């Protein structure tokens, strides 16, 4: 025991971000056991894909989904992670680093990867709360909070980062303005024509862009309230995002006396002025250049790893980078020199109607730059031509039309590319590397290629091309996971697309939808027909004629079928309150029709079980006569509103929860919803009505009502999220109606509120309902559709409607 193992080299990484952790991975791959590693990070979590903060802000991804290295990764690799403690000093003589809380670690090799900081323009007011950059997950959280409580957002800077921030804020329901100093957007990546198209595309997403805008001051007392322009214009602002550039984070290196210019200066081997200290990422300056995209940083990581692991003396070579904007629905790509000069030629294509603009810049017989807007499918091909410096004189005539045109074949996409072509720009992975990995490791899915080669693992914009390569390599064996989940086997369209088509094309019958969307089967199936019936009912209240043949048996029969073919009957019991008269009537019905079982349900009402089909209309008639209507216990509809006794009787009750529940049930009963919908109202936080596992739950407090949404008992229990706190009964009803309608209009058929909210994000739902105008409009639409929905289906049938459902056609002996 206690044998002294050869001491491992002590490697300390400062900066737990994209470049630093990539360098660690490269080092571990080269020399798994040579180092004992400590990582210091200012941010209090493992490493995540910073690029993907934009989709997180836009509600398209969760933080978990973009976390690339959770804490267990560090544990599994024997790495000490000191997260949440920035390093504040390097003692180069003693070879130690010290953190803000005093943690000190010795090093043999130190790797700096401190990234960069957003440039905060020092206009008056720039230190007010509510003025932030867009750099880390904490910034995203601030923006989401602002979008919940405020209405107006101002983004300063119309580059990649600013526009992605603006898109995310707008997607969260904020009225968003982008202020850009220059005459056109993204002037470092786009020519003026594309920039104009982009401005129009953003306008159609509700983003207001002001160019040549000079910010004079940020106004506010406690926190930001407005932004003032030099022209005198004042824009209201609940949040201001500064996206006017980034500056390498050199503070630590400077204090340690390392040579710094704009960034920490490194040689071609990524070594700083001190031979024991390396630096990679956005914090460095290499041959006078600084960086802002991951592709070059990953190259640096490889070089540093080769050097630190002592494998090879590789050198970092700067290369052309390409840029894409990650705004869903906007397809653009830009690389190289797209402005040109007297010696260059431009080839330009423009299709204004489709919003497509392409510009290629050629010097001599080489392509040196490209801007593609509206259709960037061929970006990988152009990018390869630029980087390889290929002689394009032969291709020149058809260059603008992509690889397919020149090859004279119908192939489009990456099959046509040479093996050297780079498919994943972020990670520098070529077509050849991907194909080799597919062949060698028998890869069959995008995820596998991603984890093997890192292709499409960063910004994800090349996923389609990687999939195309998989399809090409595997032929018929590749089964691409569909991008959207189709409604059913009868159609490739997803639920959202179908709903949109119904409204946009004013489709008003099931056959019309099937015709317009090329349904594959003549009359659909048992999955799509009920979905379409619901979507039409929701889109055209009062106008669409319900199709009984597209209803599941329970909804057609207005009772729950049982395993023996009999039915159960559950009358509505408003807010769980009943009377002696009602109970007496129920007892009489049970006796008269010899109903075998009577049971109190989990939804605070009474179930009559074992009623035969032909008895149903009679049973309903008798219940109707005593004032009872259908409880819709059988429907994708408003089910029960559970309540507790509340302040009328209970010694803890703070509000009249029973009356509140009855009011809610009177408002919502009869409505059809994507899946069943349940409500509850509790009179105090003891929550006896279990409001926190309901689709819409209300809990009374001393000062009013807490509104909760998207809870679920049942198969997968989910506790509600708090939607809002309100004070009056009117507000409870208003929020409830608006929530019901948002769910009705937005969710997929058979999706309960819990999975729906998980899918679209609680923030999206909160912001939409926090907007007073939007909320009132939703409420109005709900109440309008309720005018047609609140007819008791039992009364209609007891009076003879749909009689054929309940009687045999004939009896034959």
């Amino acid at each position: 025991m206690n044998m002294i193992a050869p001491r491992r080299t002590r490697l300390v990484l400062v900066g737990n971000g994209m470049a630093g952790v990539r360098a660690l991975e490269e080092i571990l791959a080269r020399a798994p056991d040579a180092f004992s590693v400590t990582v210091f990070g200012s941010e209090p979590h493992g490493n995540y894909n910073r690029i993907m903060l934009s989709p997180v802000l836009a509600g398209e991804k969760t933080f978990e989904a973009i976390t690339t290295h959770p804490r267990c990764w560090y544990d599994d690799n024997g790495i000490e992670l000191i997260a949440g403690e920035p390093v504040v000093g390097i003692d180069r003589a003693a070879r130690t680093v010290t953190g803000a809380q005093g943690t000190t670690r010795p090093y043999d090799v130190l790797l700096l990867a401190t990234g960069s900081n957003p440039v905060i323009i020092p206009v008056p007011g720039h230190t007010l709360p509510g003025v932030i950059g867009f750099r880390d997950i904490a910034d995203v959280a601030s923006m989401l909070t602002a979008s919940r409580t405020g209405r107006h957002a101002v983004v300063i800077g119309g580059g990649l980062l600013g526009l992605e921030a603006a898109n995310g804020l707008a997607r969260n329901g904020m009225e968003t303005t982008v202020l850009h100093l220059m005459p056109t957007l993204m002037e470092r990546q786009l020519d003026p024509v594309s920039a104009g198209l982009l401005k129009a595309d953003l306008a159609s997403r509700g983003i207001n862009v002001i160019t040549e805008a000079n910010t004079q001051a940020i106004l506010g007392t406690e926190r930001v309230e407005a932004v003032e322009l030099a022209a005198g214009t004042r824009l209201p602002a609940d949040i201001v995002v500064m996206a006017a550039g980034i500056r390498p984070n050199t503070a630590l290196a400077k204090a340690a006396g390392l040579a710094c210019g704009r960034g920490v200066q490194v040689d071609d081997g990524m070594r700083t002025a001190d031979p024991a200290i390396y630096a990679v990422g956005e914090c460095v300056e290499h041959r006078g250049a600084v960086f802002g995209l991951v592709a070059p940083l990953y190259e640096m990581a490889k070089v540093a790893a080769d050097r630190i692991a002592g494998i090879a003396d590789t050198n970092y070579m700067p290369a052309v980078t390409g840029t894409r904007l990650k705004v869903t629905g906007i397809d653009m790509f830009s690389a190289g020199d797209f402005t040109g000069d007297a010696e260059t030629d431009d080839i330009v294509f423009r299709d204004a109607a489709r919003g497509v603009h392409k510009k290629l810049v050629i010097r001599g017989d080489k392509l040196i730059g490209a801007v593609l807007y509206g259709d960037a499918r061929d970006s990988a091909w152009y990018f390869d031509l630029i980087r390889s410096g290929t002689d394009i004189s032969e291709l020149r005539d058809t260059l603008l039309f992509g690889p397919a045109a020149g090859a004279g074949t119908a192939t489009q996409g990456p099959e046509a590319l040479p093996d050297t072509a780079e498919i994943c720009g972020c990670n520098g992975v070529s077509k050849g590397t991907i194909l080799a990995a597919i062949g060698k490791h028998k890869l069959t899915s995008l995820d596998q290629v991603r984890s093997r080669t890192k292709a499409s693992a960063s910004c994800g914009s090349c996923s389609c091309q990687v999939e195309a390569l998989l399809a090409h390599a595997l032929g018929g064996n590749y089964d691409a996971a569909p991008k959207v989940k189709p409604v059913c086997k009868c159609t490739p369209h997803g639920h959202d697309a179908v709903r949109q088509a119904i409204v946009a094309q004013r489709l008003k019958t099931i056959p019309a939808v099937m015709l317009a969307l090329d349904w594959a089967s003549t009359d659909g199936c048992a999955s799509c027909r009920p979905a379409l019936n619901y979507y039409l009912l929701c889109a055209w209240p009062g106008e669409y004629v319900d199709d009984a043949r597209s209803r599941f048996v329970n909804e057609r029969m207005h009772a729950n079928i049982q395993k023996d073919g009999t039915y159960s009957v559950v009358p509505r019991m408003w807010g769980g309150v009943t009377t002696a008269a009602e109970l007496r009537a129920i007892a009489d019905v049970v006796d008269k029709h010899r109903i075998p079982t009577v049971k109190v349900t989990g939804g605070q009402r009474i179930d009559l079980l074992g009623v035969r089909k032909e008895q149903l209309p009679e049973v309903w008639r008798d219940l109707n006569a005593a004032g009872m209507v259908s409880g819709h216990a059988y429907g994708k509809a408003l089910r029960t509103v559970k309540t507790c006794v509340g302040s009328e009787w209970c010694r803890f009750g703070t509000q009249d929860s029973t009356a509140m529940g009855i009011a809610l049930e009177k408002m919502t009963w009869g409505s059809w919803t994507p899946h069943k919908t349940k409500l509850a109202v509790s009179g105090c936080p003891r929550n006896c009505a279990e409001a926190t596992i309901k689709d819409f739950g209300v809990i009374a407090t001393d000062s009013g009502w807490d509104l909760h949404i998207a809870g679920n008992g049942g198969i997968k229990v989910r506790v509600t999220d708090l939607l809002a706190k309100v004070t009056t009964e009117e507000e409870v009803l208003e929020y409830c109606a608006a929530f019901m309608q948002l769910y009705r209009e937005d969710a997929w058929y058979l999706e309960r509120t819990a999975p729906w909210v998980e899918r679209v994000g609680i923030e999206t739902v909160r912001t939409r309902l926090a907007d007073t105008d939007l909320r009132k409009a939703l409420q109005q639409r709900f109440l309008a559709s309720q005018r047609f929905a609140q007819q008791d289906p039992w009364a209609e049938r007891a009076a003879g409607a749909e009689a054929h459902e309940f009687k045999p056609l004939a009896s034959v002996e």
Partner: protein
Amino acid sequence: MDGHFAPDSVWTEIGRLDDIPRLGSRVVRTAAIDIAVFRTSDDRVFALHDKCPHKAGKLSQGIVHGDSVTCPLHNWVIGLADGQAREPDEGCARTVPARLDGDRVLLAVGGL
């Protein structure tokens, strides 16, 4: 429309085509069993014992689409013409010959 081979004597008129909703079904009761009579969207009629081969669900209560009906209890899809359960399920509901004579719906129940 199957079963034209049945002798005339066994055909019984059980109703008119319009008694059965398109893409719907009605039940014909016999001493021994219930028969579900289906009408497709293109006005063909089929008849099956009203008993799913799985757990005896009432097929007359299912959703009719194309040449099939989906059982209301556990969503098996049963072929109307042959009573056969569609893959991956296995089983067969008994068929009853049915045909149209003008708008009269005839079942060959004589032999039952």
